[in-house]
Each structure stands twice: as structure tokens, then as C-alpha cells.
């Protein structure tokens, strides 16, 4: 079972197929890795959205049930971000299961950012299960505004 938060049945079919293919690819990657790394590792978790503006790069992920202390967020290199953690089940041990759709276990996600960032200027917030990482772009990565003087 993957750790995904939700099904997305309403997305357009083509996109959904592409996503499924991706999921399958990841699953196979996952199995490739599992033999050495242990059974709980899910490579594709969490799904991440990344965007940028002139000064910042933003990464957002849905991580319900986790606290900021449970996460290790690292900016490595100029344009890489890793999110590491473990989601633990809160269910008691001896119960009769009706459904188990939510996944648990360790995860790690490495991401390549669209621009270089300053690792000293990274802010992370986790609110209602949504993680937002705001990273200031490095001086070299910011678009330069060129003032044109009238001669």
C-alpha cells in the first residue's frame, strides 16, 4: 500500500493514466529498493507541489498526522530539498479491521528545485497536515531588474 492521501477520480482521464503509469513505475522502483532498505519505505511519498516567484521557491506537501518535529527537512546543495520522516499508526493493536486505506511507515523524498536557494533562509510550516517550505532564492538565482536610464 502506498502512503497517498487521496484518490483523485475526477482528474481528466489522460492525466490520470499518466499518473497511474507513474505510480506503477514508482512502485517497481520501490520494490527494487525494498530488498535492501526494509519493507516500510515508500519512495513516492509525499506528493509535492513546487512553485516559485521572483524571490522564493515554495514546496508544499500533505502530511496528515505528522508534527514538524517528526520531519527532517534538509536543503542540500544549491537546489535540492529532502523531506524525511515516519508516519506511525495510532490504532490499537488488537482490533478488527474493516478498511485500511491509509499507509504508514518511513518515507524520504528528494526534490530538485527550479532555482538555487540560500539554505540559511528556509522556513517550514506544518498546519492542519499541510507542510509548506518557503525557501529564499540565492542572489545568483533571482531575476535581475535592469533599470534603463534615459540618456
Amino acid at each position, binding site marked *: 500500500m502506498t502512503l*497517498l*492521501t*487521496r*484518490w*483523485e*477520480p*475526477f*482528474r481528466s482521464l489522460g492525466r490520470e493514466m499518466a499518473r497511474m503509469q507513474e505510480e506503477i513505475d514508482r512502485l517497481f522502483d520501490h520494490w527494487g529498493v525494498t530488498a535492501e532498505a526494509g519493507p516500510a519505505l515508500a519512495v513516492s511519498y509525499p*506528493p*509535492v*507541489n*513546487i*512553485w*516559485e*516567484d521572483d524571490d522564493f521557491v*515554495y514546496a*508544499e506537501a*500533505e*502530511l*496528515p*498526522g*505528522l*508534527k514538524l518535529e517528526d520531519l527532517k527537512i534538509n536543503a542540500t546543495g544549491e537546489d535540492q530539498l529532502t523531506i524525511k520522516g515516519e508516519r506511525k499508526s*495510532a*490504532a*490499537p493493536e488488537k*482490533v*478488527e*479491521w*474493516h*478498511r*485500511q*486505506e*491509509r499507509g504508514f511507515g518511513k518515507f524520504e523524498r528528494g*526534490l530538485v*528545485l*527550479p532555482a538555487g536557494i540560500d539554505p540559511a533562509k528556509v522556513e517550514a510550516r*506544518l498546519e*492542519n*497536515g*499541510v507542510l509548506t517550505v518557503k525557501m529564499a532564492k540565492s542572489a545568483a538565482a533571482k531575476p535581475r531588474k535592469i533599470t534603463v536610464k534615459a540618456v
Partner: protein
Amino acid sequence: MAEATTAAVKKEAGEIAPVESTRGGIYYTPRVDIYETADELVLQCDVPGVRPEDINLRFEKGELSLYGKVQSRQQPAEYQQDEYGIGDFYRAFSVGTEVNAEKIAAEYAMGVLTIHLPKAERARPRRIAVKAG
């Protein structure tokens, strides 16, 4: 009258229209764990991005429905990487076990909603002592 006929025709054709929400629009189906203990049914539900005050939870005629409104958050015109969509959550369950509707309780923490449905007294398991004959 015309509507009733249509409904009847549809039933004959084996097409049963799914139950639709009055609000319309697109919903995401939250992932749910459900387990049962001797005293209660427990649902745990991932609803990231929903504030506790924006959860509408109802139990009516044996059906438990959950609607979670997601606060709009900073959404850019263009993503560099786009792996999930953002939108409200909706899901409903028909609860087979007899539950004590008065005592249903729910709590929310860190994007996870936990709902406790205590079993009705007569639905609880009883241990029956077997006497040696």
C-alpha cells in the same frame, strides 16, 4: 410523473444513479481506516488542509457523511511540479453496525479526523458461558 417513469426505466436497465451532493463541484475522496473494537467503531480519516471548524459531519438513517471544506491557500498560476490537486473532501458510509447515535464523538488533530461510533448496547458482543452437561 415523467420523472418517475425515467427512474423506473433506469432501474430496469440496471443503472443506479449514484447519490449526489447538493453542492455540486469536485470532491476528493479522503483515505479512511476503519476498525472495530468490542465497544465501538472507529474511523480515521486523512483530511489535510481542513480546519476543524470546516468539517461537517452527519449521521442520519445509518449513513455517516463527512464533508470537509479546504481553505483556499496560495496557489500559483503555474507549478514547476504538480503532483496533487487541492479541493474539498467528501465521503459517506453506510454503517451496518447498530450504533448509539447520541454518543458519536469526533476529534481532529494535524489533518486527521477521528470519529468514534459507540455500539448500541444490543450490538455489543457478549461472552456466553458454556456449562458442562
